[in-house]
């Protein structure tokens, strides 16, 4: 058996690779969507902005992809952050609150992100310094965070949490050179995070901590500090998603903003090949994972199926990708392939 595994044909090496499946899934979804609706790939310019299904997929995937990038770092430490949706709700509520209070809108953005960072600090402290299991520690903020958002709305009366802000709405729904501004925001965040993870030792430390916290501590990595930092980064990314989503609807809605985004973000990381067992960060593949989820949603809507089918198709595709990624299932498929040839 071991001999067979070492001399794999090129085809089987590709089939056995991690990166190929999410990309293949994305391509398959696009091809199916293209064959169902012939003008799926059309891109046109309307009111100084590019429009089309492909642009739409990128545009709508941005908030999930932002959260998923932060989640990828946390999952890299063998953690998980369930509170990202609640953090987005808090940062959205802070935007409405500070705009009503009359702050300059650039400052409002900073307040919103600081609130998100504070949430990340809370999660990070519980996990890293109190040693509470990540899923339990972040459950606390997941349960209470939307309540905190609702309370912030109450501070200024709470009757009308809507606001007008050319600056923030520009960030979310505007466009520069025909391209939606939020794509630039996302690209900026992605590059910054990539530089932080891959051009400093932080990524290595995170992966070491996730693989084995005890050993990396002995090797001189401050595992607690690294874990703490991961949750702060995740909080900040969730805050950005809250800013984009809240500015999009220009109203703070803590009850339903970014609902289930934690689940989509975790899915994006897993589809991108990250393991919940920690030790690996794949930033680029995580973005592909978020695109797979959004492409699926858009393709379902375009194909004329009732929107109710979206969740079912999502579940089935997720299962399919997971089965392909599973070592056990792959070994089963491979041994069948081997038997045939």
């Amino acid at each position: 058996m071991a001999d067979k595994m070492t001399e794999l044909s090129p085809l089987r090496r590709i089939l056995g690779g991690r990166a190929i499946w999410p990309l293949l899934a994305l391509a398959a979804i696009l091809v199916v969507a293209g064959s169902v609706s012939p003008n799926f790939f059309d891109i046109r310019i309307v009111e100084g902005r590019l429009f089309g299904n492909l642009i739409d997929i990128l545009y709508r995937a941005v908030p999930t992809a932002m959260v998923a990038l932060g989640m990828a770092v946390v999952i890299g430490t063998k953690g998980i952050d369930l509170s990202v949706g609640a953090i987005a709700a808090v940062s959205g509520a802070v935007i409405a609150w500070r705009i009503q209070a009359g702050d300059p809108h650039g400052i409002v953005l900073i307040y919103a992100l600081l609130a998100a960072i504070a949430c990340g600090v809370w999660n990070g402290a519980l996990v890293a310094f109190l040693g509470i299991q990540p899923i339990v520690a972040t459950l606390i903020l997941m349960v209470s965070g939307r309540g905190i958002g609702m309370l912030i709305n109450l501070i200024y009366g709470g009757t009308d949490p809507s606001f007008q802000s050319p600056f923030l709405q520009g960030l979310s729904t505007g466009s520069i050179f025909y391209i939606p501004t939020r794509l630039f925001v996302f690209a900026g965040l992605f590059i910054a995070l990539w530089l932080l993870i891959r051009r400093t030792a932080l990524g290595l430390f995170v992966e070491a901590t996730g693989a084995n916290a005890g050993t990396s501590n002995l090797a001189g990595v401050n595992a607690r500090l690294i874990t703490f930092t991961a949750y702060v980064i995740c909080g900040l990314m969730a805050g950005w998603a809250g800013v984009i989503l809240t500015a999009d609807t220009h109203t703070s809605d803590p009850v339903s903003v970014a609902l289930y985004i934690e689940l989509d973000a975790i899915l994006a990381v897993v589809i991108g090949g990250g393991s919940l067992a920690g030790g690996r960060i794949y930033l680029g593949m995580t973005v592909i994972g978020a695109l797979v989820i959004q492409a699926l949603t858009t393709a379902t809507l375009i194909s004329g199926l009732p929107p109710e089918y979206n969740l079912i198709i999502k579940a089935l595709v997720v299962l399919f990708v997971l089965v392909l990624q599973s070592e056990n299932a792959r070994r089963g498929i491979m041994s069948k392939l081997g038997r045939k040839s």
Partner: protein
Amino acid sequence: MSALFNKKYLPFYATVLVFVAIFLIGGGIYKNFLSSRVFGNILADNSFIIIAAIGATFVILSGGIDLSIGSMIGFVGVCMAVLDSMGWNPLATSLVMLAFGFGFGAFQGWVIDELDIQPFIITLAGLFLLRGMCFMVTINSVPINHEWADLYSDIKVGLPGKGILRSSALVMLASLAVAIFIAHFTRFGANVYALGGDKESARLMGVNIKRTTVLVYATGGIYSALAGVVYALYTKSGYPLAGSTLELAAIASVVLGGTLLSGGVGTVAGTLFGGMILGLISTLIIFNGSLNSAWILIVSGIMLFGFIVMHRFLVGFFGIRD
């Protein structure tokens, strides 16, 4: 006697103590709060969450997690309502739905064991799948009008004082008794604790990991389905969005009840009190009348925080895990 003072049960005693304390505080603030009527209402209003949480306790004791609870409650609800409108007897529908819950849970457990994928992700797919199926069954709110459903809701048992135990509370208490029996007096129960304590040791001791995993998720599924049946009969309707995020409340009840999410430590009875603490908090805030419902979420979060830190302390101080 010394068995009762086992340090393993410290988190459970703490949960009961906090429940009694909150109830007494409520009685101190509001006249008529400290009555069997309020107690009976808390049991009835939270019965479906507690039933689902009892099932989740098994899953969490085994070291897993089940996110599909809320969607299962919604799906069972719409099936009950739609089959009712097609003339089915609620009792027959309930049995079919319980069988479905068992089968669906068993399938989730099988996939988790066979593919060796984290339960979090598989049951997340289950959450999406069942919620999508809710919308395929119906996108409207459908009422349940059947004389058997009326008969069911007329069942009640008097408590000392003016309180009554409604049918949903009775179903919950019966399912709790069954769960306590399964957890503490059967081989399967012992296997669940062993699996959650240490999977490899359990395997070496001869626990059939696959069988236990499948049965654990099947138990979770049948309890979620029962919660859905109780919820549908209690509200006398089925609505495709019913039960959204209830998995969260169920997991929170389990944690408040003294079960460690890392598996292997905890009691089913604790979950009852965990669920009742959550119910008590919202009842108190509703009793107040002037507080915003946001406070229910925040106080629940604070309670969770307090309990989790307390467990951490108890585990570290008394070495409960050993």
